[in-house]
């Protein structure tokens, strides 16, 4: 079936295809229409699930954790301040090894109060032990929800998939929707290895001492490492079954490119158009889209960026006192390669609080990075007002 859906509806329909069993959520702009759509899908019988509208995001994640621990496949969605409020429980879900799947609609943090997009909300949760996908289109949102369950339930870690406020959340696109039966062939019903089962009792969240805590964390790291392969296979299998796949990273016109723009989210779409234009003008420019941020696909990024002249990383976020967060990730990845193969890396801060990242903005970065002096680790802020 094909329907015209917003990014938010695509997230909801993704959870419907995956047959989420418990949805526990709280409204926040610009996420709210995800849970409204799910409330409708449950109410009209298209999704056989329980829907709880709780009293805060903190409770929303607690509800998911409880339901997941009881053996149910769960889903929730949030944004910005709501995600920040969940923070304590994001750790809980990950350290409890519960494969909750959540959509986060990227929205800038307050104050000043803004409902527009940037990545600081999700990136502030980078270190909580969740897998992170950044989506570029509504189809990718729906497909990533389904893939997320596949990966989460294989490695027993939760997954957050991220979509840009308004540029995706409230923008309509044609989306292919697999049936629940078709999806079930790809994603079989959730069968947890450990859950609250009266016939085989288990306990979650016990107190541990210094002798075992580190091992729990190590096991998460092992699972994260494994998740790279699992996610890649999940994407390959998905492509085979549904004809669509995205990779963990996606190179665009990179074969012979000396200069690379690194992007994520909807900026990647704009960058494609810009790269095409720049190519026509004779620039040796290509684009690398980062779809998966955690676990970070180190090897793939290294291979693809190795030997390039210069890399411009576009960060729709800022770690104040350090710089763009994707820039840090890329620099870290590129340190461990031979010096003669190592490109210069430049960080650009763009589009905070929903400011438009237009083709002109991206073209100006592509031109700037070719002219700029030796990289000194400084961040370049694009389009700042005096």
């Amino acid at each position, binding site marked *: 079936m094909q329907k015209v859906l917003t990014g938010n509806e695509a997230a909801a329909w993704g959870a419907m295809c995956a047959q989420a069993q418990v949805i526990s959520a*709280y*409204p*926040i*702009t610009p996420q*709210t*229409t995800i*849970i*409204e759509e799910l*409330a*409708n899908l449950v*109410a*009209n019988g298209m999704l056989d699930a329980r*829907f709880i*509208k709780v*009293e*805060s*995001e903190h409770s929303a994640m607690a509800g998911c954790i409880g339901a997941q621990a009881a053996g149910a496949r769960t889903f929730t969605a949030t944004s910005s*301040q*709501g995600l920040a*409020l969940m923070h304590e429980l994001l750790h809980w879900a990950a350290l409890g090894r519960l494969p909750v799947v959540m959509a986060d609609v990227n929205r800038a943090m*307050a*104050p000043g*109060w803004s409902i527009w997009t940037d990545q600081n909300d999700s990136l502030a949760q980078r270190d909580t032990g969740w897998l992170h996908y950044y989506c570029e289109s509504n189809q990718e949102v729906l497909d990533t929800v389904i893939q997320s369950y596949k990966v989460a339930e294989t490695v027993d870690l939760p997954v957050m998939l991220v979509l840009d406020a308004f540029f995706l959340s409230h923008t309509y696109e044609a989306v292919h929707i697999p049936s629940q039966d078709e999806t079930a062939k790809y994603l079989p019903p959730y069968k947890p290895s450990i859950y609250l089962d009266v016939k085989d009792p288990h306990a979650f969240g016990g107190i541990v001492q210094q002798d075992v805590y580190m091992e729990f964390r190590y096991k998460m790291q092992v699972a994260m490492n494994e998740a790279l392969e699992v996610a890649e296979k999940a994407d390959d299998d998905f492509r085979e079954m549904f004809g669509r796949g995205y990779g963990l990273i996606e190179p665009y016109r990179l074969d012979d490119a000396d200069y690379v723009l690194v992007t994520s989210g909807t900026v990647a779409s704009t960058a494609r158009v810009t790269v095409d234009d720049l190519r026509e003008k004779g620039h040796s420019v290509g684009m690398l889209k980062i779809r998966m941020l955690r676990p970070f696909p180190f090897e793939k990024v290294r291979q693809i960026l190795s030997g390039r002249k210069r890399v411009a990383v576009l960060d729709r976020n800022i770690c104040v006192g350090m710089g763009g967060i994707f820039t840090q990730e890329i620099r870290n990845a590129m340190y461990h390669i031979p010096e003669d193969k190592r490109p210069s890396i430049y960080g650009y801060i763009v589009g905070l609080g929903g400011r438009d990242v237009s083709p002109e903005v991206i073209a100006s970065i592509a031109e700037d990075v070719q002219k700029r002096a030796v990289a000194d680790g400084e961040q370049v802020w694009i389009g700042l007002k005096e």
Partner: protein
Amino acid sequence: MHASYTKYLRMNRIPHMWCPGCGIGIIVKAMIRAFEAVDWSSDDLSLISGIGCTSRAPGYLDMHTLHTTHGRALSFATGVKFARPDKHVVVISGDGDATAIGGNHLIHACRRNIDITLIIVNNYIYGMTGGQYSPTTPVGAKAATTPWGNVDIPFNVTELAKGAGATYVARGHIASGVQLERLIRGGLNHNGFAVIEVLSNCHTQFGRRNRLADPIDLIDSISKSTVNIRQAAKMNKEELDGKNVVGLLHRDEDRMEYCEAYEQIIERAQNAQKNRGRR
């Protein structure tokens, strides 16, 4: 426009963003008249909000304002009051903000009896995010997240406040602005934690889904649901069923205000230190 309104408003922030016909305008006007009646200067007033339609009020009122996070306005307000007990602190909140995500802070502010005036605009729904059901949505009412009707039992906000220890509890409604102003004034004058619930309309999100899309019809239905506390005293339980009793519902002047109690502790501790020194 009467001069007193402009005195308390940031006129350069007007027009406001509330829907035409929204009750918050009536409530803000009643607040301003109450501020003027008790003769409080903007300089001595701090107005604090959380998230939701009410949270925009500090943007329009020209005083010391904080527009804070969802549900936590009372926690921020407690900090402000504790730092400057000589100033007046007022919080404006909604049913979702005050009784759902901020429910815990509400009961603890009531318990402490700190000298803050809390105005809860109860419009039975999350208005700003698009009409999801809240802890005051009536059973059976429709919302964006309850297409077949709500099953959750709603809070009685004033009983909750009373039970948690608030020392001034009142309920007003937007069809009676004069009474509302009087109830708010009483809260401002009260030395302790004052809760004023205001029954208000959200025809955009609540009314539209519940056959009350016309603001006049919705305000009318709110008005008809109310019964004054003096009249209520003469009515039996059956007659009061489904009615909202309005007026000053509870007042306790005997309990000590929190900042004062804290000062007394400091004084006691200092005296004890002095006495010890003498020995």
